[in-house]
């Protein structure tokens, strides 16, 4: 056997491993819908079967509700196209805000109304309705300038080993994406589908609620909803998802 043929044979033998490596692999970050079962993926894109749209409908009603409604400043909710793709973002005062945070701040400052509260039904509904307007648009968060320190903090959180299981996010979502864990397929762990309707929850829920479940999964401390660590992580996840489509409202197992 010549050296060339030997090398070719070695490559041929290695090929299945290379392919498996790509599918379950580290390098590429794919949209979460690629990891969904075909049934769930179809239902996610079908408003007649996706229960998350019940919240969208309520959110659109909330948008128009009241004397100082969202609509009275922003106009029709269609004007919110592309907004969700730019969040989380750093606000004028230097705070990192996600979409929920921006809506709450708008409510307090401009509508003179009490905050809805994280994970409350109206906030989820309004966030879903706004996020829907960016459905399919590529994620394009600002990562430089004032956002850079937050991004770095998020990266550190993502890469740090955590909890009793001593796992970092990437050990599941990069090294083992595409493989199965507890009856589901591990995705690249993007937040593009949130707020999402999870069949496990029987309701719509925020990304931070999902992150709390991740923390519990590795037996780490569950941080409160809206915690700065989760916000920074949300920004880092969005930077990982740069260019990938917004899937909100998502449908998850």
């Amino acid at each position, binding site marked *: 056997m010549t050296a060339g043929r030997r090398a070719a044979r070695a490559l041929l033998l290695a090929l299945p491993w290379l392919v498996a490596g790509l599918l379950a692999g580290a390098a590429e970050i794919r949209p979460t819908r690629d990891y969904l079962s075909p049934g769930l993926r179809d239902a996610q894109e079908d*408003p007649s079967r996706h*229960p998350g749209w*019940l919240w969208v*409908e*309520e959110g659109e009603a909330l948008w128009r509700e009241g004397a100082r409604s969202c609509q009275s400043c922003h106009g029709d909710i269609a004007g919110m196209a592309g907004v969700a793709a730019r969040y989380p973002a750093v606000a004028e005062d230097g705070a990192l805000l996600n979409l929920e945070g921006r809506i709450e701040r708008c409510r307090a400052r401009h509508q003179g109304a009490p905050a809805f509260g994280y994970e409350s039904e109206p906030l989820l509904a309004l966030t879903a309705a706004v996020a829907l307007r960016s459905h399919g648009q590529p994620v394009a968060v600002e990562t430089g300038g004032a956002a850079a320190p937050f991004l770095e903090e998020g990266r550190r959180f993502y890469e740090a080993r955590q909890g009793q299981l001593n796992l970092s996010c990437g050990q599941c979502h990069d090294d083992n994406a595409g493989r199965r864990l507890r009856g589901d397929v591990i995705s690249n762990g993007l937040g593009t589908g949130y707020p999402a309707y999870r069949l496990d929850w029987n*309701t719509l829920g925020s990304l931070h609620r999902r992150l709390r479940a991740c923390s519990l999964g590795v037996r780490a401390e569950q941080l409160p909803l809206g915690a700065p660590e989760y916000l920074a992580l949300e920004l880092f996840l969005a930077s990982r998802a740069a260019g990938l489509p917004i899937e909100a409202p998502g449908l998850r197992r």
Partner: protein
Amino acid sequence: MRTVPITARITMPASARKGEVVTVRVLVRHPMERAANAPGVAPTPRRILHAFRVTYGGEEVFRMDLSPGVTANPYVEFTTVATESGTLVFEWHEDGGAIYRREARLDVA
């Protein structure tokens, strides 16, 4: 007996030809609260939509009983034959006697 509107998404064509089979998809927002009673748990009475009934031009075309095993925000799909222009009335019966109602119009050419 009170009748209240409810958040629901009814997806069906606005018009159909006479004799055409029409698919109706219905999503309704409801927690479908199963009864819970166990040591250490605050007892919760059962509150689910236990029946779903649809009439078309006054005539019943679909009915189903829902059990505590049915998911929250249940999704139902059924078909009916377009006979004449009329209103489909969707009725959900909740434990405790409340009836939620929604309507949709079907024009038949």
